[in-house]
């Protein structure tokens, strides 16, 4: 949901973007779990959301052969600031651990941790409940130049990017008694920092949800994306390409409280990625704010 930027910040981005999906007006229906497009609040409403994520990425490509795990958390605040307009800010945290092979064949551990890049988003309900254009910008608030005894971390392993990124897109929604559908198209423009020019990315996402029993909703979501190869002197020799993920999930609502969980499974991913699965758990609460 939150328009963040490119796959070098993938785990953090997914964590924070997923929180921003708040289906309000909205809370009357189930909402997407992993889509990166935000929905809008009604004027005066405020929502606070948090999401945790665990990225499991073993058996990376040679020569490093990285076994990587990322624990992420993100906090988002969304405000229905104007009629049909929602403003959102998201701050992520990431703890990245990687076991890598070093020249000589031994393995060593690398560890990056800290606050990531904050994302600011605006979404407008052009056609309330049906069409929502959105834009976002990611500010380089996170540490992006960490190093250890082996040297500087590769850019994708940093918790921040050091670059300004921008995203624009549109979300289409359709509700029916049987199933709720949301589809989003978006484009992210990657910025440049530290001799690393992040590739742009275009995404298409679809979320289908159906009530299972009581407040419990089942979701099946998918994302197809294509990312341009990274550029610059510190870009890997091979990067970019197509990604296709599917994510089954569950969502439950109790009054103004919503909890949700999903597992993203990549079916196709670029040569420089080796994610096996991403697990997400989220919680959000809506405040009417006297509106």
């Amino acid at each position, binding site marked *: 949901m939150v328009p963040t930027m490119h796959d070098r910040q993938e785990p953090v981005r997914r964590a924070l973007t997923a929180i921003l999906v708040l289906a309000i007006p909205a809370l009357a229906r189930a909402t997407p779990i992993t889509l990166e497009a935000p929905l809008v609040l009604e004027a005066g409403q405020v929502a606070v959301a948090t999401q945790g994520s665990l990225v499991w990425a073993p058996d990376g490509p040679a020569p490093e052969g990285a076994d*990587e795990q990322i624990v992420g958390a993100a906090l988002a605040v969304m405000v229905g600031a104007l009629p049909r307009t929602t403003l959102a800010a998201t701050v992520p945290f990431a703890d990245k651990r990687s076991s890598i*092979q070093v020249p*000589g064949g031994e393995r060593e551990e690398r560890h990056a941790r800290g606050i990531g890049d904050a994302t600011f988003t605006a979404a407008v309900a052009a056609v309330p409940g049906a069409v929502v254009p959105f834009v976002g910008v990611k500010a380089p608030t996170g540490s992006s130049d960490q190093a250890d005894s082996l*040297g500087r971390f*590769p850019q994708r*392993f940093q918790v921040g990017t050091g670059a300004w990124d921008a995203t624009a897109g549109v979300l289409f929604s359709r509700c029916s008694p049987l199933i709720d559908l949301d589809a989003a198209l978006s484009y992210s423009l990657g910025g440049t920092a530290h001799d690393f020019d992040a590739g742009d990315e275009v995404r298409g996402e679809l979320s289908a949800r159906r009530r299972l029993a009581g407040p419990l909703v089942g979701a099946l979501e998918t994302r197809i994306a294509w990312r341009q190869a990274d550029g610059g002197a510190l*870009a890997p020799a091979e990067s970019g390409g197509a990604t296709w993920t599917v994510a089954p999930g569950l969502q439950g609502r109790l009054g103004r409280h919503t909890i949700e969980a999903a597992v993203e499974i990549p079916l196709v991913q670029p040569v420089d990625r080796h994610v096996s699965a991403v697990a997400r758990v989220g919680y959000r609460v809506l405040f009417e704010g006297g509106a």
Partner: protein
Amino acid sequence: VRLALLLLCVGCAGSGEPMPPGTCDEASAGAAGDLVEGALSIGTGSGDDFRPLGATIELVLGSQGGWMVTPTLEVDLSAMATDGDCVRIDVSVDLGDGQQLPYVAILSELVGERWTSEPLQLFLSYDLAAVEGRTANLSASLEDDDVVATAEATAILTNQD
């Protein structure tokens, strides 16, 4: 600082595939044989695009931050006059401190008169500053039946955009 480099993976062009364990035991002995001059070259590119290594060799960044060089080998099989089965290849890189970490690959079958390898991933460092601008001495040897071919090359490590 001197780094001897490890060839982590020998990709194989044509039918020169790494052997299943135990298939080519005789090739792993590393016994010295008759030297064949000029049958092995270190360079870049494969097939008709192979070129002997020049004054520089480009550093390549892996997706997880490892800096490596990716030379290729060309073998003149007609000069070797062997069957091309169960071929042993040793490759190493020395950046000046004498440490040697040779990597050995056993290839099942090399075919054609001139065989070139896929780029070899010679892993150097995670620290660009530790390798950029240094002089790398690359050495390779190939053993098949009772003959041996060797090659050496020297190049400066560069990082180009």
